[in-house]
C-alpha cells in the first residue's frame, strides 16, 4: 500500500458545514445517551406523585437546571433535524454539493431557532 499523507490535527482541519453538522449529530447523540438516567429520573419524578411533581417544578426554577434542560432540548432537536436530513440523503435526495450545503444551514438554523423558542417558554 502506498504511503498516504495523514493529516489529523483536529485544530487545523477546516471542516465544511455538512461535516460540522455530521460531527454535531454524533456529539448530540452521545450527549443524549449520557443524559438518559437524568431524563428517566425526571420522567419518574413527574409521574409518581403530586409532591414529586412539585419538587421537579421547583428544581426547574433554578437557572442551572434550565440551562441543562435547554442544552438537552438543543441536543434532541439538532439530532432530530440532522437525522431527518440523513434519511433524505439515504433516499438520494439532496446529495448534490449545493443542496447538501443548503440543507446543512437549515438543520443548524431550525434546531437553534426552535431551541430559542423552547428556552423563551421555559424562562
Amino acid at each position: 500500500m502506498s504511503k498516504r499523507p495523514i493529516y489529523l490535527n483536529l485544530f487545523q482541519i477546516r471542516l465544511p458545514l455538512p461535516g460540522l453538522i455530521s460531527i454535531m449529530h454524533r456529539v448530540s447523540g452521545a450527549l443524549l445517551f449520557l443524559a438518559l438516567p437524568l431524563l428517566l429520573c425526571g420522567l419518574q419524578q413527574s409521574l409518581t406523585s403530586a409532591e414529586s411533581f412539585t419538587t421537579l417544578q421547583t428544581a426547574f426554577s433554578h437557572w442551572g437546571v434550565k440551562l441543562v434542560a435547554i442544552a438537552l432540548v438543543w441536543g434532541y432537536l439538532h439530532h432530530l433535524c440532522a437525522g431527518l436530513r440523513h434519511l433524505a440523503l439515504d433516499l438520494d435526495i439532496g446529495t448534490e454539493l449545493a443542496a447538501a450545503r443548503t440543507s446543512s444551514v437549515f438543520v443548524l438554523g431550525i434546531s437553534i431557532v426552535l431551541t430559542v423558542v423552547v428556552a423563551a417558554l421555559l424562562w
Partner: protein
Amino acid sequence: MVNREVIGAHYGLGGWLAQRVTAIVMALYTLLFLILMVRAPQLDFSGWRMLFAPQWMKLATLLFLAGLYLHAWIGVRNIFMDYIKSNSLRLVLHVSAIVWLLVCAGWSVQILWSV
C-alpha cells in the same frame, strides 16, 4: 476494493436499517407527543398523568423508548468502534452499554405502568 455481497452474513445492514426504522418511529412519536401537549387542557400534575393513562399511550411511549434504546445501542457501538482501539476495553464498553440500556428498558416499563 473488496467486492462483497451485502446479503447473507452480517455486514451491518441490519443495524443500519434498525437505526433508520427506529429514527422514523421516534420522529412520529415526537410529533404525536407535541400534538397531545398542545391539545392538553392543563398541564398540572393530574393533566400530565392523564396523558399517560390510556393503554395505547403507554404502549406508544414504550415503543418510542424501546426504539430509542436500540437506536442508542447502534449509535454508541459505532462511536466505540471508531475511537476505542483496545479490543478488551471495547468489549467491556459494549457489554456495559447493553446492560445499561436493558436496565433503562426495565425502568421505563416500571415508570409507565405505575401511572
